[in-house]
């Protein structure tokens, strides 16, 4: 990571240092935080000592916090409607990531912004869920036949849906990894362990270890790294909150093994510790159920470390472009076997944006 980005990461690790930032430092940090979608997060971290920040800087952090607070209200409102739409469907409806953090007021929620609501339902309930949503005004955004097949046969989610009046975006998942992915997990166990959410009768959230595992899996299987650092900050917040209980860590390792998500957990722990100094027991990384070899780990460092810094142009290095491309290809490689992947990427490369 380039030295110009150190102050931003330092602020995320040790919020108190923000009180000592000079105006030149803030001039960089505010822009880097905005590009990474973390301005509201900095605001939440600094809210206890806002009077020690320059007034012109605090205005931006306060503005970002205001936006995050509006999104929190909007999610609560939307979940009341969604809960009614799904009242008569069967099985658990599990909120994932941003919506779960906001609805349950989990540690990553403070100052966080997000763009859609992610739900997980049992595969057997997928048709019923989609019908109930369509009856209440949720429509699938226009896709061509190829895109529809991509989602419905190969992916782990329905094509994104949008409510015709409220404009909210919704992703309905039936697995936390694509159907075609090399790695297989066990969504039924993930659903079975979910915890009912007080105040939202139709919804549950993943149990704490599963929150970490899902966030890690999402981050390290995605090809888009614009929000990579924000997702790592989520993981850091979850690990700091749950890690105070010594029993959490062995449970997390055991759960990763059960769900076959040891590798993404290893990456999450490695990069949270490297970039954000997340406190965790010394033995943990070495005890991960699925560690890469030394050479593979070194190679992945050269890809992941620049990618986490890639949101702002000033933090990019000459390696950022190739690293981003390599991660994009990697995400697809993990997502589908070669006989599906090669035609898919060719198609995406030559496809035009015609309606």
């Amino acid at each position: 990571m380039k030295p110009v980005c150190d102050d931003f990461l330092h602020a995320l690790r040790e919020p108190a240092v923000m009180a000592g930032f000079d105006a030149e430092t803030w001039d960089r940090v505010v822009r880097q935080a905005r590009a990474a979608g973390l301005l509201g997060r900095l605001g939440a971290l600094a809210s206890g000592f806002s009077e020690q920040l320059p007034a012109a800087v605090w205005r931006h952090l306060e503005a970002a916090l205001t936006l995050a607070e509006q999104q929190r209200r909007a999610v609560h409102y939307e979940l009341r409607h969604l809960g009614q739409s799904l009242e008569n469907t069967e099985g658990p409806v599990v909120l994932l990531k941003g919506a779960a953090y906001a609805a349950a007021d989990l540690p990553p929620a403070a100052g966080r912004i997000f763009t859609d609501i992610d739900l997980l339902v049992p595969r057997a309930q997928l048709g019923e869920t989609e019908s109930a949503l369509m009856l209440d005004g949720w429509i699938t955004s226009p896709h061509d036949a190829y895109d529809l097949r991509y989602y419905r046969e190969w992916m782990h989610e329905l094509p994104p849906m949008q409510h015709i009046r409220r404009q909210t975006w919704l992703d309905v998942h039936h697995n936390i990894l694509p159907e075609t992915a090399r790695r297989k997990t066990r969504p039924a166990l993930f659903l079975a362990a979910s915890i009912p959410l007080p105040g939202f009768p139709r919804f549950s959230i993943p149990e704490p270890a599963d929150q970490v595992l899902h966030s890690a899996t999402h981050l390290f299987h995605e090809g888009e790294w614009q929000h990579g650092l924000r997702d790592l900050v989520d993981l850091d917040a979850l690990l700091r909150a749950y890690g105070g209980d010594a029993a959490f860590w062995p449970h997390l390792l055991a759960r990763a093994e059960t769900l076959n998500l040891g590798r993404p957990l290893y990456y999450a722990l490695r990069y949270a510790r490297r970039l954000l100094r997340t406190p965790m027991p010394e033995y943990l990384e070495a005890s991960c159920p699925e560690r890469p070899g030394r050479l593979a780990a070194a190679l992945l460092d050269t890809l992941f470390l620049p990618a986490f810094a890639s949101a702002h142009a000033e933090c990019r290095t000459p390696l950022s472009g190739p690293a981003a491309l390599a991660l994009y290809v990697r995400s697809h490689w993990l997502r589908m076997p070669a006989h599906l992947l090669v035609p898919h990427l060719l198609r995406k490369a030559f496809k035009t944006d015609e309606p």
Partner: protein
Amino acid sequence: MAVNLGDLSPAELRRHLARGLDLRTGPFRFLIRSHSPEVARGLATLYPDFPLRDGGFRDFHIQVDKVSGPRRWYRPQCNFRLDHHAPFKPLPANHAFPLLEWGMNWCIASHAQHYLMLHAAVLERNGRAVILPGDPGAGKSTLTAALILSGWRLLSDELTLIDRNDGLIVPLARPVSLKNQSIEIIRAAFPEAVIGDIALDTHKGTVAHLKPPRASVRRMDEKARAAHIVFPRWRADAAVKLSRHSKADAFIHAATHGFNYSLLGRLGFELNAALIDTCECWDFEYSRLDEALAAFESLAS
């Protein structure tokens, strides 16, 4: 010693713009980069009284420059960027200055959530601010231009910013955007008015900007208390008429025409309610500028 933009020679201004011109307008500092001669000329004409700064924290790092590739030479286009992010489609290169103005408005309207932001002009005289919400075509910018050329202080022609801590209005004092016929109307009525280049065929029609009075720029750190909300309406041959406007309707109008009323939630409601409580609300119909100016005198006294 503080330097104003007008103190720079044309060559110095170009050098500043190449590495970043550090300009302050009200509470915001913009670091403006541009190689466009239209941008340099527009700034020199319309912003001479604005103070420059050097280094420290800038609210927005922006750039207006030609797009690269073949369109740099063939029917050249320009782009607006906020810190490497381009929120708009490119425009013809000779619209660079209006693009800068719209871009600056966009920066404020989409980021300054620490204010309640209404889509309205706002002026002040004798310590009494008048807010002009005006829908498009209501003659809001013509009226605003005429008032500031007749001794009223300009706070803003588009963005009324209300401070969340004290409910006062925060000035920007930036140039007034004139459209279509209003450019000629203002030129005819106020021959001394300084108006920048005319941009033809923009998405808003013909556009030009009016230089804000020096006194308004000098007082851009002075907040103002709102006294009136006036909904102007220009109608051919109408006699000037000021009549009461329902406060309930004014509240709804401010709420629905604001940039961030619902985003602010409860705070938006409270700020808006306090604003409407302290203001008298009026419908204002006019056809002649001189009669309109006389009627506004009565609001300021």
